[in-house]
């Protein structure tokens, strides 16, 4: 399996798909965007950090393990670090495989595993600023809030007014070149959408 893992401090530029063979029938892409609202309070964005070398090592291992379960030809993983304003992508993943089922399962499991084990952190700056204000007034609190399980992050390919939903692109690149299409789905629960799509 071809694996491309990138961490970047600049906005994610989606690379053009490169098909490793003519047997690729599915190209599944996913973007995670930073959402604005957290419990009714507006965030300006999120700050991301990572133990980069460890994250890279664990992602490679996760991708190898998932490839054994859901054979895929290639994965492109790009994660942004540093400050990411609301509406911009913090994550891009593309999976190529012969059939959609493997690619969708690989993608859903890869994101779940990343959120559980890969040393990447997000920090909600808007909330941090509010807490600093409160602390100055004498209340308790940490200087920053690191978000454990991504309640601040929505997933979308398109920026929507107000709160963004999630989206997943599923491209059917017909190997006989007789036709192709794509489907856009939106949801705030990425994994649920992917699994529904597989079913």
């Amino acid at each position, binding site marked *: 399996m071809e694996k491309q893992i990138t961490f970047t401090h600049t906005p994610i530029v989606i690379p053009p798909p490169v098909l490793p063979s003519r047997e690729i029938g599915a190209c599944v892409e996913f973007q995670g965007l930073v959402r604005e609202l957290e419990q009714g309070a507006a965030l300006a964005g999120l700050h991301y950090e990572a*133990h980069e*070398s460890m994250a890279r*090592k664990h992602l490679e291992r996760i991708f190898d393990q998932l490839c054994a379960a859901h054979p895929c030809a290639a994965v492109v993983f790009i*994660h942004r670090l540093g400050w990411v304003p609301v509406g911009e992508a913090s*994550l891009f993943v593309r999976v190529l495989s012969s059939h959609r089922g493997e690619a969708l399962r690989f993608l859903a499991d890869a994101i779940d595993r*990343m959120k559980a*084990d890969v*040393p990447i952190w997000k920090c909600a700056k808007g909330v941090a600023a509010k807490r600093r204000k409160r602390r100055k007034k004498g209340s308790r609190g940490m*200087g920053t809030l690191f978000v*454990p399980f991504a309640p601040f992050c929505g997933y979308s390919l398109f920026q929507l007014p107000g709160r963004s939903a999630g989206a997943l692109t599923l491209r059917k690149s017909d190997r006989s070149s007789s036709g192709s299409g794509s489907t856009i789905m939106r949801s705030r629960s990425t994994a649920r959408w992917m699994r529904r799509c597989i079913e």
Partner: protein
Amino acid sequence: MQVKLLAFAQARDQLGWPERMVDCEPGETPRAILARVLPGARLETWRVAVDEEYHSWDGPIGNAREIALIPPVSGG
């Protein structure tokens, strides 16, 4: 021996620095080392990695070169 101790996210906030060299012995555990560096640290939600692999808080570090304090991760 000296080991590089890395602190990320909340761990860095609590310690006040992102990395530091600490003196330790191969038989020492990450829990014992952190107790010296940050007495009273609450480790329930943190994990520890030794040379970039997740490690038990109570396992000896051996000839490790790096110990990383890993608060709950939240990528994506």
